[in-house]
């Protein structure tokens, strides 16, 4: 009797043990993202299902669940919140990155240099690379471009073929920045558009593209911030002239909000605009146009050659995700990113399709979602001309001070020379000596 009981007990224990080991391990990852393009974290979440299958095939029974933290706040504030959370040991496991240099400084980003970068478009990791190590994975390859309204050109007297051929002429270096500014002025003077050229209302790197077009550089080969005084003067002179001499830009553009500017660009009130290509989602949305309709009205071109710039270019401005260096699940987080780069590139293609941009992963750019996107299909060639800007300490301060000067220049309250002086002094005061080069 006792033996029977003992056997039964042992069997029951074995059964419990087998059941216990057969139970899947459930891992809950905290994922954070900011602003509209939730296709970024959603791609990670979708990749988790496929990763679970891969794990199962390898004999690992792991269930991955997510705790989402999607916000809609200023990117700077979002970055600061994440750093603060990290300092308190409460940062998400995987998150959309902002201000990578600051995050690397505090050590909150895991080094993911071992990710297979061959799958990615060349140079796309540059903006997330600090001291030779990659700290985030780019999820897309949006480029900052110049938008122009084809219908306005036709109304101005160009044929549609000529209007559509403009990007090719720019790419071939046959149409210059000076000619384009003149075109904006002519179209406005002809009464086709109310305004010739618009830009973002807040601080951002879009202005650096015009600076670069005017021959300026803002970082050196060591990714150190550069204050190029001569080019900065040319840039501020352009901004001043655009608003006060040519009057192709409204004096109070910076005081107008995004909805007003998006509508102005979308409905042809303004002929041209410079900014990230994914902003076209907002521009099209502001005038209730679908991508097809929008691409019939508006086209995109690179920043052209100029008196000071020999090659047309676009700047790549990827969005990406990083892994918390203190996560309890570094391998799973890493595998999720690897899955997206390899077997699940279609998820990234979907994201790129939704935000009208190219993908960071080569395979995704070959997929139908991108090749048939009416907006992205026409700008694929730009990838060859895309410049990847590295991670630069102090760039946010430069952007912020430049915007301050731009606002006053457009209102005619200061001269370009004063603007250069003001920005220079602020950079001297706010950036450590070893983090900026004045030339």
């Amino acid at each position, binding site marked *: 009797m006792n033996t029977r009981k003992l056997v039964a007990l042992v069997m029951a224990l074995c059964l419990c043990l087998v059941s216990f080991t057969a139970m899947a391990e459930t891992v809950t990852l905290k994922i954070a993202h900011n602003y509209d393009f939730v296709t970024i974290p959603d791609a990670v979440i979708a990749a988790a299902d496929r990763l679970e299958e891969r794990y199962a095939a390898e004999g690992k029974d792991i269930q991955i669940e997510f705790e989402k933290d999607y916000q809609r706040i200023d990117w700077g504030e979002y970055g600061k919140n994440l750093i*603060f959370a990290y300092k308190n040991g409460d940062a998400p496991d995987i998150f959309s990155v902002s*201000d990578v240099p600051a995050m690397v*400084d505090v050590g909150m980003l895991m080094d993911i240099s071992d990710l297979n970068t061959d799958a990615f478009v060349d140079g796309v990791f540059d903006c997330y690379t600090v001291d030779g190590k990659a700290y985030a994975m780019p999820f897309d390859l949006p480029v900052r471009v110049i938008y122009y309204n084809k219908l306005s050109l036709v109304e101005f007297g160009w044929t549609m073929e000529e209007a559509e051929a403009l990007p090719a002429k720019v790419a071939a270096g046959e149409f210059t920045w000076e000619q384009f500014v003149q075109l904006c002025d002519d179209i406005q003077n002809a009464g086709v558009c109310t305004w010739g050229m618009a830009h973002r209302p807040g601080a951002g790197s879009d202005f650096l593209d015009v600076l670069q077009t005017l021959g300026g550089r803002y970082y050196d080969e060591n990714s150190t911030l550069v204050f190029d005084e001569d080019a900065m003067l040319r840039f501020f002179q352009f901004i001043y002239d655009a608003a006060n001499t040519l009057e192709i830009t409204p004096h109070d553009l910076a005081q*107008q909000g995004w909805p007003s500017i998006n509508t102005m660009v979308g409905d042809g009130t303004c002929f041209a605009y410079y900014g990230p290509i994914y902003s076209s989602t907002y521009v099209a949305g502001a005038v209730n146009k679908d991508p097809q309709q929008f691409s019939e009205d508006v086209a995109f071109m690179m920043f052209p050659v100029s008196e000071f710039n020999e090659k047309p270019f676009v700047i790549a401005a990827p969005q990406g995700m990083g892994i918390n260096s203190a996560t309890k699940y570094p391998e799973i987080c890493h595998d999720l990113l690897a899955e997206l780069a390899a077997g699940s590139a279609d998820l990234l293609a979907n994201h790129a399709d939704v935000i009208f941009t190219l993908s960071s992963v080569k395979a995704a750019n070959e997929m139908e979602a991108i090749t048939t996107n009416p907006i992205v299909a026409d700008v694929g060639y730009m990838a060859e001309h895309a410049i990847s800007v590295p991670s630069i300490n102090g760039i946010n*301060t430069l952007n*912020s001070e430049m915007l*301050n000067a731009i606002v006053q220049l457009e209102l005619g*309250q200061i001269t370009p020379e004063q603007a250069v002086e003001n920005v220079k002094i602020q950079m001297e005061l706010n950036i450590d000596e070893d983090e900026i080069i004045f030339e």
Partner: protein
Amino acid sequence: MRKNNAQAYLFLSPFLILVTLLYILPAILTVVMAFTGLDSSFEWEFEGIKNFRRVFRDPNTPKIIINTIIYVATCISVTMVVDLFFAIMTTHFIKTESTASFFKGVLMIPMITPAVVYSVLWIWLLSSNSGGFLNKIFMGITGSQTPVNWIANYPMQVVIIAKIMTSIAFGTINFSSAIKAIPENQFKAARVDGAKEWEIVKSIIIPNLRFHILFIALWETLGLLTDYTTILLITDGGPGIASEVWALSAYHKAFISAKYGYGAAISLLLIAVVLVFMIAISMVSAHMERREADAR
């Protein structure tokens, strides 16, 4: 006696703990922070007086100080005059309580309206396009086809007017109460002597209110020095630094530029000025208490 003191401290201890945690400790941290290079990486690196040197080397500092003086001085002088005017009108001249209460209620609307709503109303009122309320009136009267960008062209004037509107109710109600507290026999005696209403205001009401005026002026000055909400929401200190005041500058440096140490240094300098005003307020309050005690 000693036992009573112990009991009092026992009852006060939760409050004292909270004050220490929520006021004294942050104040000490702010002082320490002002001597560090604390930024978005949240590393406390001691930098001595570098932040203070930076404040005085910044070419924007004189402009910000001038803005602050203009903002505080204009707001305070206009507010005091308007406060007194409304207090005297609604207490001394309008004898019907319900009518006076109605006017005071109207004056309180800007004060009780949430700052965000209030500021959005101002932005809409002064919108730079032709659809803006003020531009419609302006273009209608002058026949001009060009709308005026009121906020960009007159930022300081706009924020001053907006701030004054929110400040009127507090002083008016305080002065009203003070006027009511003036013994009626003073007014009767003046009238018996043939004093006109203006003479009553000049010789009885204003002198009786002098300590209240001083107290409210100091109190409002303190508020104006440290509160920047209206400016932040309407102009954000711009265009450029046209309407940037000291407290807002500390906010911008700390929370927008993520230079917490620098922002703390700017705040610390402001605290020094505020302390002077607080001492002045304490002295006025003490004097008022003594005066009331003497009167009793």
